[in-house]
C-alpha cells in the first residue's frame, strides 16, 4: 500500500470514514458488518425476550387464564425459534467474531468480504420469513418441528418458519466458511497456530460445526416444507414415513448447534479471564484442544435427545457413553479457567463479573447435562422443566453472559468510547441474581414431574412457578440496562485509548475505533498469546 495513502488514515476510523447510509448497507468492511449484525441480533433478542415475558406471565397461575392453549403454544414456539436460530447461534460469531477475527489474525479483512455482507442480508431475509410467520398467525410446533404434528396436524405457518430456518442456515455457513479460510490463510507473519488467541481457536471449532452440521438441518427443514406442501410422506407415518428419522436428522444438527452457541462463549471467557487476571490462560494448548474435541465429539451424541423416543436401547447406550465423553473437555475448560486465577492480578471490571458468573453457571449447566445423559435418570426427567432449566443454564447463563461480557470488553474498541462502570456492574449483578431465581426453581419443578410446554399445571407446582416468574422480571430489568448506558456511551462516553484494559492481542495494538484497514502496517507477532510484561501501558 503506497505510503501517501497510509498517512491519511491517521485520524480516520471505520466509523467516520463515510457517513452516508449506502456506505453502511453496501460495506464489505468486516467491522461495519459486525455493527449491522449487532443491530439485527439485538432486535431478535428483544422479540424473543418479549415472548419469554409472556410465557412467564402465563405460568404464574395453574389455569391457562392469560391466553388460550394454542396461543401459548405459538408463544413458546416463537420464543424458541427466535432465540435459538436468530440470537444464540449468530450472536457471538457474527458480532464479536466478525469484528475481531480479522484483527486478531492481523489481516485487513475476512477472506471473502462480499460473502460476509451477503450473509447479513441472507440472515435478515431469513428473519423476514420468520417475522412474516409471526405476524400472520405464528407457528405452534415447538422449535423442534417434530413430525407428524408439524407435517400433517398443525395448521399454522410451519412452511414459512421452516424456510426461515433453512435460509438462516446459509448465513451461518457463510460465516463459518469465512472464519475457517481467514484463520488458515490470512494469519500475520509469526502468528503460528499455538500463538493464536483462544477466541480464534473457539471460533475455528465453531466454524467446523457450522460447516458440517448446518446443511443437514437445511435439508431436513426443506423436506419438511416439501412434505407439508405436496402431501408426500417422508416423515409422515400414514404415508409410509418414519417420524423418528426426522428426529435423527433434526438432532444431528441441533445438538452440535448447542456447541455453536457455547463454543464462541468459551472463547470470549478465555480472553476475559486472561485479560483481567493479567496472565496466560492455564493450560493454553489443552483449552485449545478441548474446543476442537468438543466440536468433533459433539457430532456423535445427538441420540441423548431421543432416549424415550422409541429409539433402540442399544443405540441409546452408545449415545449415553459418548455424551459422557463430550462432557470431559467442557469440565477441563472450567478447571483451567479457575486455575488461571491462581497467582493472577485479578481486577473486577464488568467483563470480569460476567466471566466469573459464566464459569459458575456453566458448571451447573454442564453437570445437569451429565445427569440428563445418564439413561436411568433421563427416562424420568426427559421433556420436563429439568431439561428447560438445564439448557437455559447453558444458553442464558453461559452464552448470553459471555456475549454481554465480550460486548462490554470490546465495546471501547468497537465504539471508541468507555461506558460507566457503576451501571454496567450493577446490571451484571442484577442479571446474575435474576437468572438464578428464574431457572433454579425449574430444576425442582422438573424432577417433581412438571412437563415441558404446559400452561395448565397441577396446583402443587405454582409456588415454584411464581418464584421463577419473579426472577424473570429481575432478569428482564438486567437486560434492558445495557441498551441504555451503551447507547449513551456512544455519544457521551469518555474516549477510549487503544488498550483501555491493558490486554494482549493484536486488536489492542491499533487505535479505538480501528481504521478501515485495521493496521497501518501488517503486525508481526513475536510472542505467545497472553504475553504480559511490565511495560504494558494502561489506560
Amino acid at each position, binding site marked *: 500500500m503506497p505510503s501517501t495513502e497510509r498517512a491519511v488514515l491517521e485520524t480516520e476510523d471505520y466509523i467516520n470514514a463515510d457517513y452516508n447510509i449506502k456506505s453502511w448497507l453496501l460495506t464489505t468492511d468486516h467491522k461495519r458488518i459486525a455493527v449491522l449484525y449487532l443491530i439485527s441480533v439485538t432486535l431478535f433478542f428483544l422479540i424473543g425476550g418479549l415472548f419469554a415475558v409472556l410465557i412467564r406471565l402465563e405460568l404464574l397461575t395453574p389455569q391457562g387464564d392469560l391466553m388460550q*392453549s*394454542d396461543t401459548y*403454544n405459538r408463544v413458546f414456539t416463537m420464543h424458541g425459534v427466535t432465540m435459538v436460530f436468530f440470537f444464540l447461534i449468530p450472536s457471538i460469531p457474527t458480532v464479536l467474531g466478525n469484528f475481531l477475527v480479522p484483527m486478531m489474525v492481523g489481516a485487513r479483512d475476512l477472506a471473502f468480504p462480499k460473502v460476509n455482507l451477503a450473509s447479513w442480508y441472507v440472515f435478515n431475509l431469513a428473519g423476514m420469513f420468520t417475522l412474516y410467520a409471526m405476524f400472520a398467525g405464528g407457528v405452534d410446533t415447538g422449535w423442534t418441528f417434530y413430525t*407428524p*404434528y408439524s407435517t400433517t*396436524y398443525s395448521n399454522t405457518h410451519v412452511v414459512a418458519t421452516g424456510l426461515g430456518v433453512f435460509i438462516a442456515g446459509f448465513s451461518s455457513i457463510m460465516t463459518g466458511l469465512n472464519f475457517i479460510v481467514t484463520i488458515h490463510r490470512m494469519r500475520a507473519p509469526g502468528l503460528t497456530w499455538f500463538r493464536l488467541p483462544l477466541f480464534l481457536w473457539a471460533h475455528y471449532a465453531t466454524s467446523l460445526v457450522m460447516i458440517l452440521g448446518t446443511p443437514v438441518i437445511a435439508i431436513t427443514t426443506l423436506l419438511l416444507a416439501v412434505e407439508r406442501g405436496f402431501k408426500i410422506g417422508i416423515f409422515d*407415518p*400414514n404415508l409410509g414415513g418414519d*417420524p*423418528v428419522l426426522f428426529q435423527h436428522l433434526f438432532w444431528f444438527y441441533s445438538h452440535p448447534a448447542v456447541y455453536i452457541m457455547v463454543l464462541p462463549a468459551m472463547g470470549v471467557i478465555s480472553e476475559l479471564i486472561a485479560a483481567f*487476571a*493479567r496472565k*496466560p490462560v*492455564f*493450560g*493454553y494448548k*489443552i483449552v485449545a484442544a478441548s474446543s476442537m474435541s468438543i466440536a468433533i465429539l459433539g457430532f456423535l451424541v445427538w441420540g441423548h435427545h431421543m*432416549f*424415550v423416543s*422409541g429409539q433402540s*436401547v442399544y443405540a*441409546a*447406550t452408545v449415545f*449415553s457413553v459418548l455424551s459422557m*465423553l463430550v*462432557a*470431559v473437555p467442557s*469440565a*477441563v475448560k472450567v*478447571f*483451567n479457567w*479457575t486455575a488461571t*486465577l*491462581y*497467582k*493472577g492480578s*485479578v*481486577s*473486577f471490571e464488568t467483563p470480569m463479573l460476567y466471566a466469573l458468573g459464566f*464459569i*459458575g453457571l456453566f*458448571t451447573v449447566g454442564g*453437570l445437569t447435562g*451429565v*445427569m440428563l445423559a*445418564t*439413561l*436411568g*435418570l*433421563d*427416562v*424420568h426427567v426427559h*421433556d420436563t422443566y429439568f431439561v428447560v432449566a438445564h439448557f437455559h443454564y447453558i444458553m442464558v447463563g453461559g452464552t448470553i453472559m459471555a456475549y454481554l461480557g465480550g460486548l462490554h470488553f470490546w465495546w471501547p474498541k468497537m465504539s471508541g468510547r468507555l461506558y460507566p462502570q457503576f451501571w454496567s456492574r450493577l446490571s451484571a449483578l442484577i442479571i446474575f441474581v435474576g437468572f438464578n431465581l428464574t431457572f433454579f426453581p425449574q430444576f425442582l419443578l422438573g*424432577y*417433581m*414431574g412438571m*412437563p415441558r*410446554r404446559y400452561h*395448565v399445571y397441577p396446583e402443587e407446582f405454582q409456588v415454584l412457578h411464581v418464584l421463577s416468574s419473579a426472577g424473570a422480571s429481575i432478569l428482564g430489568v438486567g437486560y434492558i440496562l445495557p441498551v441504555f448506558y451503551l447507547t449513551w456511551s456512544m455519544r457521551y462516553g469518555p474516549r477510549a485509548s487503544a488498550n483501555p484494559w491493558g490486554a494482549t492481542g493484536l486488536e489492542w495494538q491499533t487505535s479505538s475505533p480501528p481504521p478501515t484497514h485495521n493496521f497501518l502496517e501488517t503486525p508481526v507477532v513475536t510472542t505467545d498469546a497472553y504475553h504480559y510484561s511490565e511495560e504494558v501501558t494502561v*489506560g
Partner: protein
Amino acid sequence: MSKAPFMPPQGSSFAGQVDLLYLFLVGISLFFSLLIAGLIVYLAVRYKRRSPRDIGVPIHGSGVLEIAWSVIPLVIMLGSFVWGTMLFFHLSRPPADAVEYFAVGKQWMWKFQHPDGTREINTLHLPVGQPVKVTLTSEDVIHDLFVPAFRVKMDVLPARYSTIWFEPVRVGTYHLFCAEYCGAEHSRMGGWIVVQEPEDYERWLAGERGQENRLASPEDLFKRFACESCHRTDSVARAPQLAGLFGKQVRFKDGSAIVADDNYILESILKPNEKIVAGYQPIMPTFQGQMSQEEALALVRYVRGLEAGK
C-alpha cells in the same frame, strides 16, 4: 417415607432406585459446583490486583493437574453411566408375569383397555403389587405416557408399538401427563392412575363389567374378519400357520428374516404385502381402516396367545 420434598411420591418398585441415582448425581453436582464457585471467590479475592500496573505470574500449566481433572470427572461420569444404563435396561425389560394393558393416545385423550376388555378414558385403575406392562400406540401424532410417581415415560408413536412396565407399590391416585408436545390441548391431555387394593380393584372391575362398553371377544373378531378362512390349521391352508408364530423366526421371500413380534403381527394385518412369507403368495387383503386400533390390538393379542398345535 411417603414423599420427600421436591420429589414425586415413590409409586412404583423402581422409583426408589431412580431417586437414589438422582440424589447421587445431585450430590456430585453440588460438590463440584461449590468447589468451583468457592475456588473462584477465594482465588479472585486472594489474588486481587494491588496496584494498577502489576501483572500475574506467567504460569503456563501443569500436565499432572490436566490429567487429574480429566480422568477423575471421566471416571465419575462412566460410573454414573454404568449405573444409569443398568437401571435403564431394568426399565426396558418387562417381567414375564406382567399383566398386559393397552393404551392408545389420541389427540388430547388417553384410551386404556384392561386385559378383560374393560375400557377407560384418561384414568386407569390398577391393583397394587401386580407388575403391569402397558403396550402403547397412537392414532395421530406422537404422544408420551408419563407417570412421575412411577418414574416412567415412553413416547407413543403412530403405526408402531412401544411398551413400558411398572409395578405399583403404594395405593393412591397419581398424575398422568402427556410429555411429548402434541398440539392445542397438550397441557390438558393428562389424567390419573388410581392404584387400589386388589379387592377394591376387582369390585370396581365387576361394576364396570356390568356396563356394555366391553369389546367383542377376540375369537369372534377372528371369525368376523374371516382370518380363519385362510389361516386354517389343516395342511391345505393358503396362509402361514399362526399357532406358535409369536417369537418364532419367520423367513421371507427375499431371503431376509425377523423374529415375529407384536409389530410384525400388527404390520401383517394392516400392511400384509410389506413382508411376504417364503413359499406364500401376496394374496392377503389389507385391513387398514377397516378395524379400530382396539380391535387390531385384540387380534394381535389373540394371535400371540395361539399355542402351537391348538
